[in-house]
């Protein structure tokens, strides 16, 4: 049969999904290796740290207030990072702070990602009035000053962990929406979406099976940006006294509590400040690497 004779005789290559290709490119990326290592260490510390260092971060020991860390002359291994004004172990508070920062970061990104992607995909795919309405929502969201609104809400409803997650999550979805909207618009004009319509696919199938997998690249990039953003926002709110409330600990809160000691005990700011900077830097490095890895995808 002539048709089978026309079959191209190329060398069979191992099938590779575009995702797998991007992942391999990512793993070879220098920024990803550095950022990923730092991020991995911080996540690991947040998970197993409190278990390895089981001192209660909330228990006060007024006899040992403002103990110096182990590397100064009078330091002891009893409190490797010293204690704060209330005699709480600084290392234990730092580890708990890591949990709080990461929990808030990841959960808010999840929440804002779902909201933003949902709105963005709907606007991009359906267009017309839905697009106008969602654009209006995005514009309203962009007119709200994030820190100010968060301050007001927290001042009214109190600074519990769930409140913070919901507030920050409801404020950071705009970039998700803008990015997925334009990416969806581009994809929706591609013939494979029209093909999907022509084979009779339902709208949920088109959105979830055909469209969404193609949005993962840009979504992950936005997620890293927003993760860093959320971590910093939590630190800022806690620093202003409107975020995490003692006895719970957070890096922003620790910096706030130590600000009076800036001149006499600079390590008290440096100890929570350094991991905060490292975390944000690491997230940004990873985000950069992911952007490179998915951008090179091109049409494939």
């Amino acid at each position: 049969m002539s048709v089978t004779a026309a079959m191209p005789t190329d060398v069979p290559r191992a099938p590779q999904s575009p995702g797998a290709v991007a992942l391999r490119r990512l793993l070879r990326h220098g920024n990803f290796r550095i950022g990923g290592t730092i991020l991995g260490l911080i996540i690991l510390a947040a998970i197993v740290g409190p278990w390895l260092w089981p001192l209660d971060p909330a228990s006060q020991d007024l006899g040992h207030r403002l103990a110096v860390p182990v590397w100064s002359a009078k330091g002891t291994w009893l409190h490797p990072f010293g204690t704060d004004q209330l005699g709480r172990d600084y290392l234990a508070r730092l580890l708990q702070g890591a949990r709080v920062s990461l929990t808030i970061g990841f959960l808010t990104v999840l929440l804002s990602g779902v909201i933003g992607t949902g709105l963005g995909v709907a606007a991009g795919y359906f267009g017309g009035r839905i697009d106008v309405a969602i654009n209006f929502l995005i514009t309203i969201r962009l007119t709200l000053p994030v820190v100010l609104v968060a301050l007001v809400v927290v001042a009214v409803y109190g600074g519990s962990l769930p409140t913070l997650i919901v507030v920050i999550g409801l404020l950071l979805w705009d970039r998700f929406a803008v990015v997925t909207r334009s990416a969806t618009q581009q994809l929706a004009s591609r013939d494979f979406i029209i093909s999907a319509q022509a084979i009779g696919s339902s709208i949920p199938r088109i959105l979830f099976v055909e469209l969404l997998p193609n949005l993962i690249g840009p979504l992950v990039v936005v997620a890293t940006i927003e993760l860093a953003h959320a971590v910093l926002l939590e630190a800022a709110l806690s620093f202003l006294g409107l975020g995490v409330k003692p006895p719970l600990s957070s890096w922003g809160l620790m910096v706030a509590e130590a600000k009076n000691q800036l001149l006499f005990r600079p390590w008290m700011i440096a100890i929570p400040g350094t991991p905060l900077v490292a975390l944000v830097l690491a997230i940004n490095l990873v985000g950069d690497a992911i952007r490179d890895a998915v951008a090179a995808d091109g049409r494939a």
Partner: protein
Amino acid sequence: MKPDALITVEGATKDYIVHAEGVRATLRALRGIDLTVRRGEVLAIVGESGCGKTTLSRLILGIEEPSAGHVSLEGKAATDYDRLARAALIQPIFQDPYSSLNPRMTIGQIIAAPLVVRGRGGRRERHTQVMDAMRQVGLAEHLRNAYPGQLSGGQRQRVAIARALIGEPEILVCDEPTSALDVSVQSQILNLIAELRARFSLTIVLISHNLAVVHHLADRVAVMYLGQIVESGPTEKIFASPRHHYTRALLDAILVPEAHRRLPRLTIDAEFPSPLTPPPGCAFHPRCPAADAVCREIDPPPVGDGDTRFRCHHPLPTPA
């Protein structure tokens, strides 16, 4: 409706609202199209970019609704079909196989999609059907797990054809199916389409600007210019003795790879007018060598003898 008409287009008009240089305007992409496609034939829609041929194909596919007039498939309006019934009847094949396959799905998933959507058959049954479809279009079995990015243009177009055919539709709408492909691959795809057409007795709407391809595959031709069908009829007849001056120009412009050919001197000049402001009277008059005062005033109605129809006040003579 004629008894053997599978697709009937009656007075179809399609308007788009566009914003040109800051002004809202109505673009009339189609201006009263009448067309029938008979069961089992290959009808080619020919014309240059902007003539409305792709818009017409979207109306036939039921992706868009006409602003006025009717498009019906088997006597029922194309937009009245529910999505699955329409999919079982008519399928598209697009020009650019780089854009028509989802880059995140494997070839097997892409070809099986019409079956999955219809909830037809179990996993094993679908697998057998996918394998059959791949064999029919000449794709090697191991490509089932490959992604579109790993395939050549010709292979991708074969995947698109397999996907279109797996649900056993009656009509295939092929929009420039070979123009994005390399020359040596084009003929493979044309042969495949011809072979599958014969095997499944498909009805094909072929949209193309390549008249050589049209001549090779089509039974009937409809020539479009600025949203109208200016001439239609059996392929042999149109190629042998076109009546409309635009058809004549299109035929003259075919560049054939043969020795001792000289470049054609076309009898038409100037450029395509903007579809936003179509010329009054006959839309073709600014480019037509035979245009006179009548052409500038009155839009010629379709006239015809037997199976050919054309819109021209001063048609080219038929050879005696």
